[in-house]
């Protein structure tokens, strides 16, 4: 290191004071601001600066809204100005700023001149970092919500399938046994009617269970789950789904399978609702190390630039969000009169492959 002259050093310090992005305040024992650098001036409210310059009120309190302690986000108790002995080497403080309201700053506060009681307060803008953190938190939360929803659906679906439907089935068997016992004809007739109702109820419960979350998705994988789902779509809505699957591995990570299933479900439902067609093509394949899903219809299509949602508008958002959960790419292509194509591409990392092998 080159030894620097005191002169040189003070020049550098002065430059740092003037040019630094960090706001620097010098504050005396009474909490009055004795000096601040241009960066500090630029964040303070103009009124406050005027009052400080005019000497009406130069306390730092008029701009500080409190700092974060263990108990509160914005606390004023045990103010750092009054407790210079406390450890304020790093803390978060909220300031009323010019035109941007109350903004959080990372701050450090310490005494630099013991004799005259001068301390320095240095601030660094935290908004950007906080936004990043918020986004991260939101995406984590969304992941969590989707997972919780899937888990809950899985639980209810299993319950319906394994316990409610099973019980009903055994009652139905009992009922059939009764039919072969010596019973009067009018009782027989009533029994037959009850059998019809119960059989239909059993089917309804099974449908409900599959609608919530197909157990075949967990037990047999994407292809099987899709085949039964499309069959159900055909029966329920008369929509014909042309499905072709070209998969090397039968299974993928459960998160990936869920995403592909849900995105496809939503895309097909959209085609059913808005495309005005009774045929949809679905293709599932593996290309260049990624799992690819294509849902295509030759229906009405829509103008992508002029997006006035026919439904809630949440469907497309949800598909995109789900795709992001597994680092997938979601693409949508549509034009009026030219149908709609939805594409989902999910990279298959080594992790996913391994998970598939373990199964």
């Amino acid at each position: 290191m080159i030894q620097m002259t005191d002169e040189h050093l003070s020049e550098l310090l002065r430059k740092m004071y003037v040019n630094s992005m960090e706001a620097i305040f010098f504050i005396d024992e009474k909490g009055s601001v004795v000096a601040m650098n241009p960066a500090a001036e630029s964040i303070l409210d103009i009124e406050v600066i005027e009052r400080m310059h005019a000497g009406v009120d130069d306390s730092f309190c008029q701009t500080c809204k409190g700092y974060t302690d263990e108990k509160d986000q914005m606390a004023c108790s045990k103010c750092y100005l009054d407790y210079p002995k406390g450890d304020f080497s790093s803390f978060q403080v909220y300031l009323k700023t010019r035109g941007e309201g109350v903004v959080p700053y990372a701050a450090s506060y310490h005494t630099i001149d013991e004799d005259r009681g001068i301390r320095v307060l240095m601030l660094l803008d935290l908004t950007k970092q906080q936004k990043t953190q918020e986004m991260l938190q939101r995406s984590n939360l969304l992941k969590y919500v989707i997972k919780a929803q899937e888990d809950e659906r899985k639980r209810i679906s299993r319950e319906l399938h394994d316990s409610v439907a099973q019980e009903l089935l055994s009652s139905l068997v009992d009922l059939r046994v009764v039919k072969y016992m010596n019973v009067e004809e009018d009782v027989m007739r009533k029994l037959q009617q009850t059998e019809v109702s119960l059989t239909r109820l059993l089917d309804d419960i099974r449908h409900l269970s599959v609608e919530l979350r197909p157990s075949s998705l967990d037990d047999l994988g994407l292809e099987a789950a899709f085949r039964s789902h499309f069959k159900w779509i055909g029966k329920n809505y008369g929509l014909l789904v042309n499905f072709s699957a070209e998969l090397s591995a039968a299974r993928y990570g459960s998160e990936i399978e869920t995403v592909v299933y849900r995105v496809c479900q939503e895309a097909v439902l959209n085609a059913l609702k808005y495309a005005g067609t009774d045929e949809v093509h679905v293709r599932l394949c593996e290309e260049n190390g990624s799992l690819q899903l294509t849902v295509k219809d030759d229906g009405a299509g829509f103008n992508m630039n002029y997006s006035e949602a026919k439904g809630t508008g949440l469907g497309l958002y949800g598909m995109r969000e789900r795709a992001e959960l597994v680092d997938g790419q979601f693409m949508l292509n549509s034009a009026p009169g030219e149908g709609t194509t939805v594409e989902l591409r999910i990279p298959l990392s080594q992790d996913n492959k391994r998970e598939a092998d373990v199964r």
Partner: protein
Amino acid sequence: MMNQPIFHYQEEIDGLRDRFQFDFVSMALVQPAEDRFVLTWQFASGNINDRYKRIVLHSGKGIAGIVFKTGKPMLIQNVNTDIESRDLFNYPIIVAEQLKSLGAVPLWDGTRVMGVLLVGYRAENRLNKASFDIFQEGLGTAFGAFCAKEVSQP
């Protein structure tokens, strides 16, 4: 149920369509045990495609499902105003046949609804309360092997 005369429902509903100038008439029936007693459209007259054949009805869902469950006739005078467009996909027969005005009546076998008869137009407001009443009057009490009205239990 024994010694049933054979009914030609296709001819029956063709006749109904002719008589009341409907654009579309169809009939859903509960299927036998082999098909798990599901309710499907068996006959149609004036249909523009065969999509109706693919549809399996669910009790309480769609036009026929509601009529089947409640046992009450149902009238939708104008599809465009009475059904929200985002709900329309739940009524596949309306979408498939582009119906705009329609009604449905239950077909009874004793105290059970065994089928649904649906009549409709592809123009708005063609079927209203008055004309639906006239149709039900004209249909009479019996349709094939079924009653158009519930037979009260003895």
